[in-house]
């Protein structure tokens, strides 16, 4: 564990600032998920980073900004889809692939994790992600996935050769550079050929109903 801190300690600042490429961020995220010490460090760095806002010269916005905000709030709002579209377009980073497997493998425990690279689908072409499976546990790391509209969540699916689907659980993204979620992985993972993430109503769906945002191959 101490060794791992040394490996990751210098990565944490870059992680908090979104300055790591996704494959390195995923390795940090995988360590963070199990390391309360590094979680505390990240929380401290987040505070320090936010405090940098106070060093900026104060320039009040035009009064119209407040008026625009309040007008928007008063409007009966169901333009969540448009908002999602804007959010989905946020991050434009195309990723070199397959760097994570050796990276994670060298740093983490002897049990080699399976690393599945996920690409943005129609509804979120610029999103990307990794699904890391180790000892039957799953960790999903995403980048560029917008916060879903009110009342909706993302849902992970495992798809077998005859298009049967099993849910890996639901999650909501947060406005951060990377999203990290624990997901449920089927015990018989070998029976599945693809994974996908779709947008679904709160609580999830028995089968996919919404647009796909991420997809990847298990073969």
């Amino acid at each position, binding site marked *: 564990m101490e060794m791992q801190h040394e490996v990751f300690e*210098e990565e944490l600042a870059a992680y908090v600032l979104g300055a790591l490429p996704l494959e390195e961020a995923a390795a940090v995220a995988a360590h963070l998920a199990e390391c309360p010490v590094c979680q505390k460090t990240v929380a401290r760095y987040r505070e320090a980073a936010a405090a940098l806002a106070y060093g900026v010269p104060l320039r009040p916005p035009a009064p119209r900004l407040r008026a625009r905000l*309040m007008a928007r709030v008063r409007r009966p709002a169901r333009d969540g889809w448009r908002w999602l579209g804007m959010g989905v377009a946020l991050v434009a980073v195309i990723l070199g692939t397959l760097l994570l497997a050796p990276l994670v493998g060298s740093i983490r425990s002897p049990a080699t994790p399976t690393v599945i690279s996920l690409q943005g689908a129609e509804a979120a072409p610029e999103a990307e992600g990794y699904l890391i499976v180790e000892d039957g546990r799953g960790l999903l790391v995403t980048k560029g996935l917008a916060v879903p509209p009110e009342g909706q969540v993302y849902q992970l699916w495992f798809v077998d050769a005859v298009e049967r689907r099993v849910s890996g659980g639901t999650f909501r993204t947060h406005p951060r550079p990377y999203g990290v979620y624990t997901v449920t992985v089927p015990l018989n993972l070998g029976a599945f050929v693809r994974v996908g993430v779709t947008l679904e109503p709160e609580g999830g769906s028995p089968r996919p109903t919404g647009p796909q945002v991420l997809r990847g191959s298990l073969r």
Partner: protein
Amino acid sequence: MKGSGYADLDDAALLVLIAGGDEQALAALYDRHGARAFSLALRILGDPETAEEVVLDVFWSIWQHAGAFMPERARFTTWLYAMVRNRAVDRLRRRRARPPEVPESVLEPREAAAVDPAVEAMAEAEELAQAIREAMASLPEAQRRVLELAYFRGWTHREIAEHLGEPLGTVKSRLHLALRKIHDWLAERGLLL
């Protein structure tokens, strides 16, 4: 001038009201933090119109997701300024086609005439503003530069390394030391949790 009852409430209490659909609570939260959120977005983006869009997006997002904020895990301003910074940097990255100019320092002279007294009068914000300027000034130039490129420009450590002609490890190390020093500087003065 502004709803006096709301002015007495802390951010977490305002968020509870916002989650319940209280527009005046959102207005109060904006009055308290909008100017600094805008200033941060403007510092990153350089143009007021896009900075306004970012602030509008962020406060709209707060209106929609106020219930998602967990006060036991972070203070609201950490959440808020991370959102502003990340969204501003995302927009910056999207217009990356043109080569970024060399950023000016964060330690610009303050524009006293433009300061909103209602915001600046908040003692804690003023103390923190002063402390962060001192903390930045206390960093070795090389560390400050790396931190500014990462935070205000949204550059990855690789881009910074290429730009400065330094090894990647050196950039990572400087970023780490800089953020840790900023944290420790503020924590020693009781300005962080």
